[in-house]
């Protein structure tokens, strides 16, 4: 047996070595890499679920809701708890009007990943469907109703063009904003986009302990590992817009393509901003579907373009205000200077026509504005020269963005430098002539015109339009407040502006004034008509309308201005005929609202 004893010693040594190997491995796993594995085991069991913050509301100046959230009842099935799946699929298919194959397919797809994750069957079911399901709740084991937030528009399409729409995040959004997740909805245009950071709020999260199968674990086990964070709803945006005036503006536009902007001349607050055609923001609330989107972007009437801020038009005669102010300030004319209008104006070999082929005869500045005599301003333009004219265009806010916050175009206030850069060609004097009457290269937005009108009315202060008055947090504190914001003081003396103001009153109230259709009997409206030729630069195939754009820009009351209203009707014809009556409607609506408000205040 001695022989075997020595072998047993060897066996003991082998046992010792084996012990050391296992102990060393335990030391390595548990002590050296213990913390690392501890993290792994935490990751294993804690699942973070994001609780999206409700988006802020958008309210009008009186706190009335334009954009709110509404609950969307979404139906999920939890495969694990599903009993008698065939029967449940059948009755759900009947109630929700989805095919059985659809439901089965969705569940089968999800089961491949996990039996313990709810499968979205239907989003935003209607009240009847909800009632039917709620009443039979016990018959649907494994059915989950989740409430999510969707955008709702109590006034329908009202204001859609500036409110903007929301949509699914893009790759670029994901890269630029760390708080945004795929499948999130965020503002794509308008207020929704520009004030995204206020509207958005802060997402919260809940942490759940899950077991190896991904099931939520209810037991008290491991609760100390968990942290939750409530979501903070986004701020409400309080607009300067008045819903009633906005309604009046959109109704006045009706089916006509064009834009109406109304602002407070003293504060720059935008009271109404209408653009037609527009779109229905409801199409976007769950992320727009492919077909509807294609329809919208291929629509030749461009419903997604906000004509008030992004539409570029030749201003026509409304631009004569700029030329008149420039002429007075530069001393090219005085209020008394008289020019003779034979109905045409010759420069070199070229003849420029007045809209009145018969001619206006001898006219002073006042008469030239009231009757909208072109020849008078051709002469003025020739004397001013483009450099001076261009400077005044810019002083009145043309060729640059107004700073309204939402998407807008800067338009063109042409100059020698601009033309050289844009076309690599020198400036011709004839182009100066047509610029004075708002034709040629001049391109403006209705918003720029209304801000110019407000500046003329308030004595020369070019204001930044204020679309949003303030942002208010969920708890009611004001987080951002926008006050009156002056862009520039237009360098034209107030007596000179007074001459122009007088003329604008004459446009509406003098006999022979082109804007008489905006006349009121009980107070004075000041305004200027414009009939902009559609330059045949527009070579976009068939169906092009060559009818003129109709403009009317105005303010009221003339003696103590409050509101400025600009109306543009695309291819509407004569501004005085088409646009002026619409402006009158808006002013009437404004006065009515003012009276109602006063009555309320006094009551």
């Amino acid at each position, binding site marked *: 047996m001695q022989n075997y004893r020595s072998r*047993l010693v060897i066996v003991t040594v082998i046992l010792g070595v084996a012990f050391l190997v296992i102990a060393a491995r335990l030391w390595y796993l*548990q002590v050296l890499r213990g*913390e*690392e594995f501890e993290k792994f085991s935490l990751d294993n069991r804690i699942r973070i679920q994001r609780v999206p913050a409700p988006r802020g509301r958008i309210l009008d100046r009186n706190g009335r809701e334009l954009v709110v959230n509404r609950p969307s009842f979404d139906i999920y099935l939890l495969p694990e708890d599903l009993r008698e799946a065939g029967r449940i699929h059948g009755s759900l298919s009947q109630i929700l009007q989805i095919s059985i194959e659809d439901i089965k397919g969705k569940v089968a797809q999800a089961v491949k990943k996990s039996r313990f994750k709810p499968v979205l069957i239907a989003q935003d079911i209607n009240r009847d469907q909800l009632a039917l399901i709620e009443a039979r709740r016990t018959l649907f084991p494994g059915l989950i109703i989740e409430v999510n937030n969707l955008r709702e528009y109590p006034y329908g399409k009202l204001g859609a063009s500036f409110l903007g729409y929301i949509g699914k995040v893009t790759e670029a959004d994901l890269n630029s904003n760390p708080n945004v997740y795929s499948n999130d909805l965020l503002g794509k245009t308008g207020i929704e986009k520009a004030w995204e950071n206020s509207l958005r709020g802060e997402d919260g999260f809940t942490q759940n302990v899950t077991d190896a199968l991904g099931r939520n674990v209810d037991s008290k086990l491991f609760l100390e590992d968990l942290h939750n964070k409530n979501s903070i709803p986004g701020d409400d945006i309080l607009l300067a817009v008045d819903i009633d005036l906005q309604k009046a503006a959109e109704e006045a536009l009706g089916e006509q393509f064009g834009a109406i902007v109304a602002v407070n001349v003293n504060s720059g607050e935008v009271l109404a901003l209408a653009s037609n055609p527009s779109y229905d923001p409801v199409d976007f609330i769950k992320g727009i579907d492919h077909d509807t989107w294609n329809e919208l972007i291929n629509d030749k009437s461009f419903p997604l373009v906000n004509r008030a801020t992004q539409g570029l038009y030749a201003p026509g005669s409304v631009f004569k205000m700029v030329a008149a102010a420039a002429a007075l300030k530069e001393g090219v004319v005085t209020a008394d200077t008289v020019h003779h209008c034979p109905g045409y104006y010759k420069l070199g070999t070229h003849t420029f026509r007045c809209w009145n082929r018969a001619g206006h005869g001898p006219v002073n500045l006042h008469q030239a504005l009231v009757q909208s005599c072109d020849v008078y301003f051709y002469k003025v333009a020739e004397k001013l020269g483009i450099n001076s004219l261009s400077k005044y265009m810019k002083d009145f806010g043309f060729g640059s963005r107004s700073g309204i916050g939402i998407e807008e175009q800067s338009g063109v206030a042409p100059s020698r430098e601009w033309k050289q850069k844009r076309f690599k060609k020198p400036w011709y004097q004839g182009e100066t002539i047509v610029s004075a009457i708002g034709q040629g290269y001049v391109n403006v937005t209705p918003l720029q015109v209304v801000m110019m009108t407000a500046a003329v009315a308030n004595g020369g202060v070019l204001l930044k339009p204020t679309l949003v008055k303030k942002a208010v947090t969920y708890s009611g504190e004001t987080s951002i407040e926008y006050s009156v914001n002056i862009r520039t003081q237009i360098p034209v003396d107030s007596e000179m502006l007074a001459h122009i103001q007088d003329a604008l009153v004459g446009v509406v109230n003098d006999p022979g004034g082109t804007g008489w259709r905006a006349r009121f009997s009980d107070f004075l409206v000041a305004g200027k008509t414009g009939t902009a030729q559609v330059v045949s630069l527009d070579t976009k195939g068939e169906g092009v309308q060559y009818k003129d754009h109709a403009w009317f820009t105005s303010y009221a009351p003339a003696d103590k201005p409050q509101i400025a209203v600009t109306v543009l009707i695309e291819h509407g014809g004569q501004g005085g005929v088409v646009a002026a009556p619409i402006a009158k409607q808006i002013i009437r609506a404004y006065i009515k609202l003012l009276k109602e408000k006063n009555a309320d205040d006094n009551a």
Partner: protein
Amino acid sequence: MIMLDRRLLKNFGWSLFFMILTYSTLALLNLYSVSYQTGLNYFKKQLVWVICGIVSMLLISFVNYRTLRQYALYIYGFSILALIFVLIFGKEVAGARSWISLGSFATIQPSEFVKLSMILAIAKFYHDDYQYTPYGLVELYKPLLLIGLPLGLILMQPDLGTALTIILISGSMVLFMGVQKSSILFVLTLIIGLSFPAWHYALKPYQQDRVKTFLDPSRDPLGAGYNAIQSQIAVGSGGFLGKGFRSGSQTQLRFIPARQTDFAFSVFAEEWGFAGGVFALILYSLIILWMIDTASRAKDKFAMLVSFGIASMFFWHLMVNVGMVIGLLPITGVPLLIFSYGGSSTMTALIGVGIVLGIRMRKLPVTGESMVFR
């Protein structure tokens, strides 16, 4: 037969007995933690098995090992019959026909008990054989037959884990008794030569997967590598002192697969940490050491080789199971004796301890019999 002699009681191996009691208590605590969320089913059943096992252990210890030697081949023959029986009438679980059903409470896995009967039979062969020089392959035809018969039957079930332990235990015994160097070389050459065709033709894809996954668990973290990774996360996250009794998140949230059986030790290592793991390891090693010590004091070749065989059974179960749990070896279905839930393997282990206890008690010659020295 059963000698209730005072001297026997005096020589009773109390230290092994208490070590086994302590070890069994740890094993039961561990199963308590594993199953307390689901009604303690595994714990209760294993408690019954441990009690039955300890009673059997005590009873067996009072059986003179000479009697076992006398009947070794009969016991062996009976266990082979059981293996044949299971192949024909056995219950198929998870693709293997390894179980004999005894009503609703218990199923018996004869292949576990075969380990013991095979140890007895091999020991009997060497006891009756008087060769002192290392054995050649041809001279080994008898023990190889004794090993090959149950091995073949178990492979037919198929139960690779048990087959592997059969090879390891019997191989250890044969090697321990001495084999000619040329024969060892021949067998090694044969194994290496056959491994390539075996890999491609004999191993099933899932078996190949296990080996591949062992070599690189991250190649399939949600599939075949999942078990290996989760087990190591459990062990590692236990840290030095562990997460505490019933507080192992990997265990309680069911990230560890087969927590009550093959991966019972990862539960223990998670909840009791390095300190607990090493404690259990020391205890287990002392049990083996005590058996080796018994072998060295044995009075005949049979007793010595039986003690050694049972020690090597404990040893290989530890190595293969814990090696798998801590990621040193590929995943094979080998239980950790008593720790892993299972009546047959628990009974086998405790009866084995009983045999060793019986041998230890009889280190002095019994009256009327002369000592046999070889």
